């Protein structure tokens, strides 16, 4: 099997090569380990060798032998897990996350642990304590975040597919920026056990892949009830391989009120073209209102930091991770946390603690929770009229490194279209919709198209995405060599 054939194969195609005997599992693993070893994107924080890649991995299964990359937020027994934080720089977990156990149980070796924004807080990967991951389409630009490393290694030909997590857009936005598929499933469909917590009512595991078929295959492996996570319920009936070619009888709602200012011309052009393709496939386009979605970012930046401030109180220098002082107990806590956390994490801990503090709780946290209810109601109402809600994944294409780091609120706007679905807990996917130049000029870069569906309607979402993917015919091969030195 030639190297170019192995590189060209997505997860499903690689599984088929192994099943037919055209390529051996050893050959496939060696090829991808060598690719991962020439990472020019700072996409990996830890890389496996032949032995460690297969540790605990089942010999059989429909996806046996197809390796994958795992975001460094998933605990992996015996393998460093840092969440891209100095706080956990030397941490080696004594247990494995359920999601990782499930892919290992399906026979998939682990190529390595991918770079991310520290504790998944960020939209550019620039908040990693170990330096940003780079976009394979243009190394001067960000891959998005927080699952930026996972998106970069898949788009840049350093892994066939990867696991990520999405709290407010952390799978979909980097998938959009890197020209791949990213799926945030319904909250509760995949266990969160062993996934280092950021905002527990929003965090959800999901796949980053080169194709919609791959997203479906991984979701089927990952989903399911887990007694270690009492909020996990799984997806009844599992997920079948998508095969739809048409969109007849399906209605796609466009929240025009949300898609206004701050959106780049090229992004809007690709979005409108994709709507025409939906119509060509027999789908209906309808304008809808999500009256409160414009407040989603504000609500999210109260709720997520509030949850984060409590979740991250566990990093106290006592049981694991960094300890930076032995002076007295209080100093030990304060100095450890001061030295262990980066600026964005501190900002969110401070914001969340403020929002939960005496005298401000009702004005911020309580109000944001009620606005969240309004947003849930908006989607419920919309889904009474339409099957899907569609938006661009992000208002812009991938921006330059350093372009938004000085202004936190400008960075947060990157998740304008992805946060409403997170607050509602519903599934949403980003598929590549073509290339566009940024406003003000620059290279042609990928544009993501987001499709959201009602809770647990993943099968319908993946079927429609599959049909649309075929009509768009996006070609990501230009980036595949962008990942190697």
């Amino acid at each position, binding site marked *: 099997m030639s190297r170019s054939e192995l590189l060209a194969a997505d997860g499903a195609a690689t599984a088929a090569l192994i099943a037919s005997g055209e390529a051996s599992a050893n050959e496939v693993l060696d090829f991808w380990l060598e690719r991962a070893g020439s990472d020019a994107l700072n996409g990996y924080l830890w890389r496996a060798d032949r032995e460690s890649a297969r540790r605990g991995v089942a010999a059989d299964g429909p996806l046996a032998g197809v390796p994958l990359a795992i975001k460094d937020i998933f605990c992996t027994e015996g393998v460093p897990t840092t969440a891209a934080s100095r706080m956990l720089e030397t*941490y*080696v977990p*004594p*247990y494995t996350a359920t999601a990782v156990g499930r892919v290992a149980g399906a026979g998939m070796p682990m190529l390595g642990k991918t770079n991310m924004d520290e504790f998944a807080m960020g939209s550019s990967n620039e908040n990693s304590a170990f330096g940003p991951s780079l976009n394979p389409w243009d190394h001067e630009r960000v891959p998005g975040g927080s699952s930026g490393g996972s998106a970069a290694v898949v788009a840049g030909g350093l892994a066939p597919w990867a696991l990520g997590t999405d709290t407010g857009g952390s799978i979909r936005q980097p998938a959009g920026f890197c020209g791949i598929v990213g799926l945030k499933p319904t*909250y*509760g469909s995949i266990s969160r056990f062993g996934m280092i917590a950021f905002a527990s*009512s929003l965090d959800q595991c999901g796949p980053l892949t080169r194709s919609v078929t791959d997203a479906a295959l991984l979701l089927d492996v990952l989903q399911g009830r887990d007694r270690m996570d*009492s*909020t996990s*319920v799984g997806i009844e009936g599992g997920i079948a391989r998508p095969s739809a070619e048409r969109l007849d009888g399906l209605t796609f709602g466009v929240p025009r009120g949300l898609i206004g200012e701050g959106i780049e011309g090229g992004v809007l052009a690709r979005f409108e073209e994709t709507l025409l393709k939906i119509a060509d496939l027999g789908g209906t386009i309808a304008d809808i209102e999500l009256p*409160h979605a414009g*407040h989603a*970012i*504000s*609500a999210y*930046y109260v709720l997520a930091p509030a949850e984060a*401030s409590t979740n991250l109180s566990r990093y106290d220098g*006592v*049981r*694991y*991770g*960094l*300890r930076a*002082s*032995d*002076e*007295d*107990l*209080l*100093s*030990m*806590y*304060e*100095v450890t*946390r*001061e030295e262990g956390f980066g*600026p964005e994490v*501190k*900002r969110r801990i*401070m*914001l969340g*603690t*403020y929002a939960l*503090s005496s005298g401000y709780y009702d004005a911020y946290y*309580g*109000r*944001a*929770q*009620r*606005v*969240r*209810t*309004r947003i*849930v109601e908006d989607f419920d109402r919309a889904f009474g009229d339409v099957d899907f809600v569609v938006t661009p994944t992000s208002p812009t294409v991938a921006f330059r490194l350093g372009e938004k780091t000085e202004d*936190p*609120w400008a960075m947060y706007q990157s998740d304008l279209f992805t946060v409403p679905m997170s*607050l*509602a*807990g519903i599934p949403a996917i980003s598929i590549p919709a073509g290339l566009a130049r940024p406003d003000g000029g620059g290279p042609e870069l990928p544009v993501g198209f987001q499709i959201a569906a009602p*809770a647990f309607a993943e099968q319908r979402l993946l079927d429609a995405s599959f049909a649309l993917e075929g009509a768009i015919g996006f070609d990501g091969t230009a980036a595949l060599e962008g990942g190697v030195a």
Partner: protein
Amino acid sequence: MIEREQVLHVARLSRLRLSETEIDTLAGELSSILDHVDKLAEVDIEGVEPTSHVVPLENVLRPDEPRPSLDRDVALSQAPDPADGAFRVPSPQAES
């Protein structure tokens, strides 16, 4: 507007010993973020129930039966300062 004193108060609650530069920077950044967040006041939330969780689940129960947990040595293996089968921490009082 978040004043310096409020930053110090919240930092104390958060167990963060901020540097002088961080205190000033955070006062500005938090003020600016909260200015945006204050737009939530425009939303009519009269009579609206808060959402803390979106999955329609309640009272997930399991039998209350003892089962093995992490081995003590394993649990202590990542501790910065394990001693006598426990997590050792500095004294609550600074030594004088």
